[in-house]
């Protein structure tokens, strides 16, 4: 089936779960990524059971620091 990941259409196996997609996409911080499907966030506890459907639009949102050091006390 076809899904869209970060704006790019991809062919993936039917029945693919969000966890499997995370692995396939080599997500660097799989435990701390936020996933949105069709513009809705899904609970991180459901990644293993959530099965993707044809046409799903998936986005990975990552924590990113950067900027100035020594900021917070």
């Amino acid at each position, binding site marked *: 089936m076809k899904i869209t990941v*970060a*704006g790019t259409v991809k062919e993936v196996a039917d029945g693919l779960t969000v966890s499997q997609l995370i692995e396939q996409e080599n997500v*660097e*911080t799989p*435990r*701390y990524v*936020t996933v*949105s499907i069709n*513009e*809705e*966030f899904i609970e991180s506890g459901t990644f293993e059971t959530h099965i993707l459907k044809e046409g799903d639009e998936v*986005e990975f*949102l*990552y*924590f*990113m*620091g*950067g*900027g*100035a*050091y*020594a*900021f*917070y*006390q």
Partner: protein
Amino acid sequence: MPFTNEQLERYSRHIILKEIGAKGQKKLLNAKVLIIGAGGLGAPAALYLAAAGVGTIGIADADVVDLSNLQRQVIHSTNDIGKRKVESAAETMRAINPDVTVNTYYQFVNSDNILDLIKDYDFILDGTDNFPAKFLINDACVMAKKPLSHAGIIRFKGQLMTILPGEGPCYRCIFKNPPPKDAVPTCKQAGVIGAMGGVIGSLQAMEAVKYITGVGELLSGYLLTYDALKMEFHKIKLPPRGNGCAVCSDHPTITTLIDYEQAVCDLH
């Protein structure tokens, strides 16, 4: 107050823009922007906002300029090593544009001082590098209803979003809690390409200018990501505000500010 001849010339490229004009330039001169962090993101943002004639710029940072900063923190020079970053940044901004009043805050942000720090400003720019500070700034801006530009950079990537409290989603709508220490890489551990701060910090300055002048559409309800290696910008549409968010929903569960444990990259 009418423009002086010098101001008419200095801001002529703004004034000639039909979206800005003399009216927009007046708004900039009357505006107050607070930049938290005089580092990779705050440095370019401060340069452009000072050059644009933002009348009052606050800059908060508790660090001093280090040699390793100069690869990306373009507001500081080699001669500034050892100097307080807020002082170094203020000197550069005043040299660029004497119209700007710079307020310096040589201090850490925490739950005791953040609300007081942001209260007199129209727009807040988050240029911090660590998650406790990012969550604190987000929550404080939501509670005080202050518009905020949030950003992050690492390696060859960067991202930003504009948060309009009460209207669009906030940082905590996406990320519920800070990650544990060392769970995600920081700039110090992973590195960052110097120009990334220039790209993303300049976009933050752009959002501040647009907010002040009321021009165009703000980056509210979206997270804009930039991948320099692929040379791709990608705009991720976010779900609407609230939706169970602990701080910005109509029935928040977080109503006081939280000092999270300090992340590892904060102090050297």
